[in-house]
């Protein structure tokens, strides 16, 4: 029990530090939100002094000392009140995030889990069939695919499968003119729209899992319990899965927790290319528009989810590995 408490304490401390960093980072950026808004307006013609005044009045640009702002921010975070977005004024940040979060969670979360499972299986296969084409293909393919820049894969898929072949929609998370709802039709439509972005993430993240699993699996294959299991005449499949893979997967779980953070970053690029209405795109908009409240909320959400994922992985680890289960 004390173990869980220490872990929880550390989690909270990391969270606080992350929250503070989230507060500081955006404020280090030069230019105010009003400047960002004006720069955008200036592209459509000259901006009069009155416009500037109006914009500043509308956005309610932050006032008070940094410390006051910080205290207020902490209070707001504690109450999940993230204020109003500057870019999408007067939309509250919470609403924007709530609208974007499910898409990313489902797209990135699901695909990452699929990639993890699928990559792990391929890695197991590659290690088990070492030296055969079943090893070479996933290993070389994985190495190559994991070297693709996210956005490049996205652009190529978009162009060739979306535009040239015309098989898949090229933007958005659901058909034009439909509103998100719980119906089979909508769900199918959403899945259809998710195929290209999902494939992008899958392709670029699969390789890492294959390679990681393959190398840990090769290590466990040399372990004595595997030899002993073979000596006892267990079925090859039992040996591969229940003995070798089962042990090899443990170290990979930890990377899985941490990898989620990287995938969120990657999804930013993917979402941008596919105009996918997720957290990544929102974050990009927030950053380019100096939208402090939105940025803070998003960073917080991302950090919390990564922290949470790690926490869950830790616990999962405990369940899967009797050695840590005390």
């Amino acid at each position, binding site marked *: 029990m004390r173990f869980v408490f220490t872990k929880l304490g550390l989690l909270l401390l990391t969270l606080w530090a992350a929250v503070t960093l989230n507060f500081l980072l955006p404020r280090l950026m030069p230019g105010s939100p009003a400047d960002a808004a004006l720069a955008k307006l200036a592209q459509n013609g000259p901006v009069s002094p009155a416009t500037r005044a109006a914009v500043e009045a509308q956005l309610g640009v932050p006032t008070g000392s940094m410390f006051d702002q910080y205290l207020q921010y902490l209070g707001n975070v504690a109450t999940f009140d993230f204020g109003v977005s500057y870019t999408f004024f007067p939309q509250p940040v919470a609403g924007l995030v709530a609208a974007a979060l499910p898409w990313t969670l489902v797209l990135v979360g699901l695909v990452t889990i699929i990639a993890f499972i699928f990559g792990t299986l391929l890695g197991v296969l590659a290690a088990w069939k070492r030296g055969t084409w079943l090893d070479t293909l996933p290993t070389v393919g994985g190495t190559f695919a994991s070297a693709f820049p996210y956005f490049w894969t996205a652009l190529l898929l978009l162009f060739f499968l979306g535009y040239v072949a015309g098989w898949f929609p090229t933007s958005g998370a659901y058909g034009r003119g439909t509103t998100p709802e719980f119906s089979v039709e909508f769900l199918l439509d959403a899945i259809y729209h998710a195929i290209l972005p999902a494939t992008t993430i899958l392709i670029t993240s699969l390789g890492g899992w294959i390679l990681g699993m393959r190398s840990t699996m090769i290590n466990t294959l040399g372990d004595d319990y595997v030899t002993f299991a073979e000596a*006892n005449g267990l079925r090859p499949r*039992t040996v591969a899965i229940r003995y070798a893979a089962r042990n090899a997967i443990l170290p990979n779980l930890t990377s899985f927790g941490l990898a989620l953070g990287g995938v969120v970053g990657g999804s930013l690029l993917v979402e941008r290319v596919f105009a996918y209405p997720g957290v990544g795109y929102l974050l990009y908009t927030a950053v380019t528009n100096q939208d402090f409240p939105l940025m803070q909320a998003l960073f917080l959400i991302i950090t919390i989810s990564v922290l949470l994922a790690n926490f869950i992985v830790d616990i999962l680890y405990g369940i899967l590995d009797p050695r840590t289960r005390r």
Partner: protein
Amino acid sequence: MSATETQAATLLSVQNLSVVYEPTGGEPVHAVSGATFDLGRGDFVGLVGESGSGKSTLGFALTGLSKPPARIGGGSILFNGVDIAGMSHEDLRVQRQGGFAMVLQSGMNALNPVRSIRNHFFDIFAAHGHVGRGDREARAIELVGKVELPAGVLDRFSGELSGGMRQRVSIALALSLEPQLMIFDEPTTALDVLVQHAVMNTIRELQKSEGFTAVLISHDLGMVLEVTERVMVMHNGLIVEDRPAADVLVSPQHPYTRMLLSHYGDPRAEIVEVPGLAARGAKRAPAVSHLKTDFVPVSDEARARAAGTEGVQRREGRAAREAIVVSGVSKVYPPPRRGEKPVRAVNDVSFTLEPGASMALVGASGSGKSTIAKMITGVEHPTSGTITFGDLQVDRIKRRSLKRLHTEVQMVFQDPYSALNPLHTVEYTLTRPIVNFGGLRGRDARRRMLELLETVGLTPVEQFAARLPHQLSGGQRQRVVIARALASDPQVIIADEPVSMLDVSLRAGVLALLDSLRETWGVSMLYITHDLLSARLVTDQIMVLNQGAVVEEGATASVLQNPRDEYTIRLLDAIPHPTVGH
């Protein structure tokens, strides 16, 4: 002895078998060559030989477990008349039930850490289908019962079992296949002497009651002679001797076998000696000369060198002056797992290591020997009690004063394979303490380094100085480790099981070296071991440790000849007595 020998229906027939390791990018290693022998039903055969002689490789080949880079280079293995080399993977797998089984050398790690013991049994039952679904639980309980374990272990994971229990589980798992042939590859090496004894007894009982043919692989000739009927001796991949155990004991044919035998002695005997080394106090016998010198690398020359004038001069006026006084020392470790009790590793131990004395600290594994060593060398602080070395308050020593302590108190490490940094040459390793403690630099340091090599008998010194650890044999490594301990001219040497990782052939040499160094250099030595024979050979005094407490102490010879404490008696009983077995 057995009647089975007469009805020797052949179970396994090996003809001219050779096994080659062909690592990619490396030289091929002929681990087994031209092995030819038959095993009859119900035989109990021992296979002995030093480390790397090819015992395990042969065992793997016999059970169809040779995996790349190993390759059967030639010959045949007929099991019940069928050549197993030609069998497909699946046939081989299927016939493992009721065929042959192997208990691996590293039985400690042979269990899947994330599967319960029950599942291990059930996996085997499922793979072969020889135990019906409903009977599995009962059969598993029966099997663990056979190796003297309670049914409760079925719910546990390997991490929750002691080494001895794990080894027993491995044997039970192999038994569950109901094999005709069972190969035990060093089933007791990693175990505590007492546990070792118990496991061996179990194996012996099982072999009698189940009647399978058994091969016992071990490097311990004494143990093999004690339990088996027939012994095969391997040396450099060749089977150099294959005869009934009784004959081997009486009239060993091959010099190697003879060398092995000569290193056995009974620590309780009036006079104990092994080649190159005699029990202290007894008259030293001349070195047994008909053995090839490479079996006993420490010659009298080396001994003489160690005792050479230079060494003596160096020690003049520097003979150990201070005693290590340990009084009422206890060490309590925090519980290793949540919810358990703290570990009382050392409990109220007091003793004095007088200047120039040599004292043995013996006890079973986990009895607290190493912990005491750590406390004396300032690596750990005792929970209570005091340790002094001259004016140094060792029990409360700070990191800064550690260097001062280590000038006088040095340690010889147990495992010569891990005690040397694989990337540093012998010269570097030895020069560091010379520079740090002796304050010598450049050419002076080098000269001193070469002297040290000379002292431990690593000649030609220039050549050894340039070597990296992987270019040294185990015995040579251990000498480097000893040389390093000597580099600071210490008053006290703590040797924590300095030979447990070495083969018999190397063991005596290193012990002899230690002993002569102690004698000529006048240092005090604390010799930590679980091997009573070596304690008898190199020490004058002995302390027996059980669960952190001293249960018996006194002059080595008298304690071992007339043990009073029941624990000491058990320790002595656990020593194999080849003569007694037959």
